[in-house]
């Protein structure tokens, strides 16, 4: 922190949250470290893991209005711990951050919330499942049937989620390696949600249907020291198969992928099997961001061009990044979501 004069309370949350994304790559500082032999337990692991530094409940949805207009939706709850403990009241070191967004072909609405743990303003409870920050919720009697709602100054949404397939564990039974030197996280998904509900946009309410993909991930040292960010793809092919793949940009890049068959069976792919190459970079919010990619998974014959629905899907939040719906052409057709971090420098 070299800024001589610091607008302290406006800037500091950013610093803390940024640590979750990119900082402190090597130092777990008293926090628990993901172990390959951990067996995930449900519904307990749907809840929070306060002894890990960072965790998220990350839902993205590809939706369609009655008139066929495509939409994207994001609901994310981040947990970031200042220390590996929990408790009640203001002294809790658990901080929470919510991001919500709706993307249309011509507009991108974003809003953010920050909250302290320990006073009830934000938190996650495993069963019956409830994740909330302020008035934003993802909750239901169980993990398969949930209501998802968020609101910002210029948009809101309230949709229902119902799972049509099983939970999916990435990597080695949910132990997802993130670098050649062994940094890892616990990572599972529910990519089989059907969605129906209402988006409230400046022009009025829009009834939408579609599919959603929920990612759950927690760790204490998610990135290696040389890694500057990641490009993460969740793709749903017209065939019903799905592909999760990411590139952690570093020296050299590190990739991993999970092929998810339509029935939920998974195949994990090690470093190098999955490849993503930027085809087109665009000026987005003053940064050069790739908005079109060539994505390949040779083992499955996947060679697709992934194109952003709206190139301006910049998340102008405390920790800025790009997150938005995409479409695919090439060997496979379909839709999905793309997240790109580390382009804010």
């Amino acid at each position, binding site marked *: 922190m070299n800024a001589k004069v610091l607008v*302290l*309370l406006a800037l500091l949350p950013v610093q803390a949250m940024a640590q979750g994304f990119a900082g402190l790559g090597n130092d777990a500082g008293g926090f628990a470290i993901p172990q390959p032999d951990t067996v995930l337990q449900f519904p307990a692991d749907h809840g929070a893991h306060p002894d890990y530094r960072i965790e998220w409940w990350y839902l993205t949805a590809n939706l369609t209005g009655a008139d066929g207009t495509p939409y994207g939706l994001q609901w994310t709850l981040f947990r970031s711990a200042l220390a590996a403990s929990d408790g009640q009241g203001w002294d809790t070191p658990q901080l929470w951050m919510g991001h919500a967004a709706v993307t249309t072909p011509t507009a991108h609405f974003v809003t953010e919330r920050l909250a302290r743990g320990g006073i009830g303003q934000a938190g996650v409870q495993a069963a019956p499942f409830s994740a909330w920050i302020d008035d934003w919720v993802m909750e239901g009697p169980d993990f398969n049937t949930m209501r998802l709602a968020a609101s910002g100054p210029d948009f809101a949404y309230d949709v229902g989620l119902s799972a049509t397939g099983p939970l999916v564990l990435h990597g080695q039974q949910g132990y997802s390696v993130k670098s050649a030197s062994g940094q890892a996280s616990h990572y599972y998904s529910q990519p089989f949600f059907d969605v129906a509900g209402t988006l409230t946009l400046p022009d009025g309410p829009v009834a939408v249907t579609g599919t959603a993909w929920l990612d759950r991930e927690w760790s204490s040292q998610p990135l290696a020291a040389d890694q500057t960010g990641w490009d993460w793809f969740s793709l749903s092919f017209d065939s019903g198969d799905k592909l999760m793949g990411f590139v952690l940009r570093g020296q050299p890049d590190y990739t991993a992928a999970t092929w998810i068959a339509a029935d939920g069976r998974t195949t994990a792919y090690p470093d190098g099997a999955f490849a993503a190459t930027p085809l087109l970079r665009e000026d987005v919010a003053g940064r050069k961001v790739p908005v079109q990619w060539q994505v390949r998974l040779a083992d499955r014959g996947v060679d697709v061009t992934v194109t952003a629905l709206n190139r301006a899907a910049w998340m102008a939040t405390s920790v800025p990044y790009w997150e938005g719906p995409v479409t695919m052409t090439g060997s496979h057709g379909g839709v999905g979501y793309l997240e790109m971090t580390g382009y804010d420098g």
Partner: protein
Amino acid sequence: MTRTILSALLSHWWRNPLQLFTLLAGLALGTALWSGVQAINAEARASYDAAAATLGEGSYAQITAQDGGAIAQASYVALRRAGWLVSPVVQGKLGAVRLVGIDPLTAPRGIGAVPVDGSADLAAFLSGAGQIFARADTLERLPPTGAQGVAAPDVAPNTAITDIGLAQRLLNRAGQIDRLIVAPEQPLTRRPLDQVAPGLVQTVPQGGNDVARLTDSFHLNLTAFGLLSFAVGLFIVHGAISLAFEQRRPMVRTLRALGAPLQHLIALMAVELAALALIAGLIGVALGYVVAAALLPDVAATLRGLYGADVSGQLALRSAWWLSGLAIAMGGTAVAAGGALWSLARMPLLASAQPRAWVMARQGPGLVVASLGLLALSGGLALWGQGLLAGFVMLGALLIGGALALPPVLALALRAGQAGARGPVAQWFWADTRQQVPGLSLALMALLLAMAANVGVSTMVSSFRLTFVGFLDQRLASELYVSAADVPTAAAIIAVAERQAAVVLPILSVDRQVAGLPAEIYGARDHATYRDSWRFLREVPQAWDKLARGEGVLLNEQLYRRAGLDLGAMVPVAPGLALPVLGIYGDYGNPVGQVIVTEDVFRAQFPEAAALRFGLRVAPGQVGALREALQQEGVAPTAMIDQAAIKALSLSVFERTFTVTTALNILTLAVAGFAILMSLLTLAAMRLPQLAPVWALGLTRRRLAALDLLRAVVLAALTAALALPLGLGLAWALLAVVNVEAFGWRLPMYTFWLDYLRLGGLALLAAALAALWPAWRLSHTPPARLLGVFRHER
């Protein structure tokens, strides 16, 4: 060429150091008072702004508990979960320091945004022992907290900021919140406030912070005095510049004859003046700093006592005021010199270049018209003006109009004197005095303004003081005042007091909005104390009886004026209860409105407000015994205060309020005295040709000197005679117009003739002292110099 011309122009000042001194000192003194006042204002404003930024006052809507109490933390969470973007604040006194606890994650951007010097981080602020941000001097006053103190110079004075969790713990207020700051941008979907948290109310931002608005009038007051001082200074500068230009007319002609181009000359003279103004401005700003530093502690005490506003007692060198000081010095010089430069630019090369004393202040019908116009404007504003600004414009018009009237009035008076004069010397005296008026009129105007301000302000302060002391006697009738920490202590106090045969008058109060204005509602027990000692400004018949029967309320004057609630008007006391106004009482020194209902009504409407403060009536000789008995019951000595102590405290707050005005007053008078001295000294030299013939005709130098002394006294006396009505007009305007607008109360005007007489005597003395040296010099003028007059005249 430029250097040669400049050397000639500047040599004038070195050869006439008195003129240079007059110019620099007049300008510097005027600038000093102006920038001193501005420095004080700037410091206070910076403190208010820091407080507003620290606490989010003014710029954000706030949610508070309807009953004025604490908000449960659960209500905060409920509001957040209902979509309200609000941020909690808890505050309280930790020792003498105001501790403010905030939640950095939800606070709107800018709240508590404090530049700190170095290694602050969120983790340290939120967890572990925590951090407290405050000015270095505030940190020193904090009792030990265990938290890390971080120096942050932009935090409001006497305020410390920390995380809400730590603040709740330090203030012993776990789970309590005082107010919620409402973010300006709210989400689309929100449940209504009364559904989520009944008992909470939202207040809209006022645009500008409360303290700043409350104290605006006080600062406007200071500013007006600063301007007045500067105006007096400007009279001096105008005089000095005019004189210097007149004296340099021959030099300008010679320079042009020797080949210096006119434009070049004018430009160089402008540059020369600008440089002098800059020097004087810098001296003035430095002096202003001294003035401000000397007065600031009193101002800070006043603002704290009168408005509860924390202002730093430390003066910072803020560019706003020292730049404005320099600007006004330069601008004032430009105004004063503009005319002189203009007439020089139009002066024909071959025109007579003799210095003309009479042009120093041109007179004529224009002056009379301007004076009458300004006085008429002032009268019109007095009758029909609205608002504080109109009040000050009225004051300004009155003072300047009065000042401009001085030369014509003096001329009239002197003409009358001349008409009544017998004997040649007397006739010459009056005629010569008349001839001196133009040369002295600027200095005399300065004296007039200073005296009028002195009369006006001292009348206001003394009237206020008389009224205030009487008011204290009425209001502080109980011999002893006791506060209880809790209800059991209160019961013990009542028991002890009744054993000691004291009458117990509970002081019940709640803070409520009345007619949209902040106010206190008091419950009064029906007791002879009130009936005997209270005086109303206006009342209906049997007001106390009706009050006792719960048939109405009493109102303080502020609320009556601000809310326009006259006798008989219905006052909404509580939801579903409105009562008519029975009486209006003076309530000096209180910034907020006040409503008094009888005890029964109060207890019925506000059952939650316990009586924790009491006035105890007991024979004066038994106060000591009562104190001891209460102390034995565990009442802390600091919780008891007797009548005499309260009166002393109230009076000290009052005295401090006017220390500043008095100080400025005296300084202004001193500046005016200086103006007279300088005018007389400079005139003395120019008057030699006028005196030489009289001397030649047989008046001794001693006689001439004595007559000059007498002349100064006569002129000062005439000026003083005019200053008195002007000053009384000023006092009336201050009491009946400015006070009502600024503070909400009108004061009766008293006159203090002995004081005025003494002031007049002082003015005469000042004039005589100022004239003494020039007169002495005249009486010792070598005859050769007087003769030289004839030799030099062609």
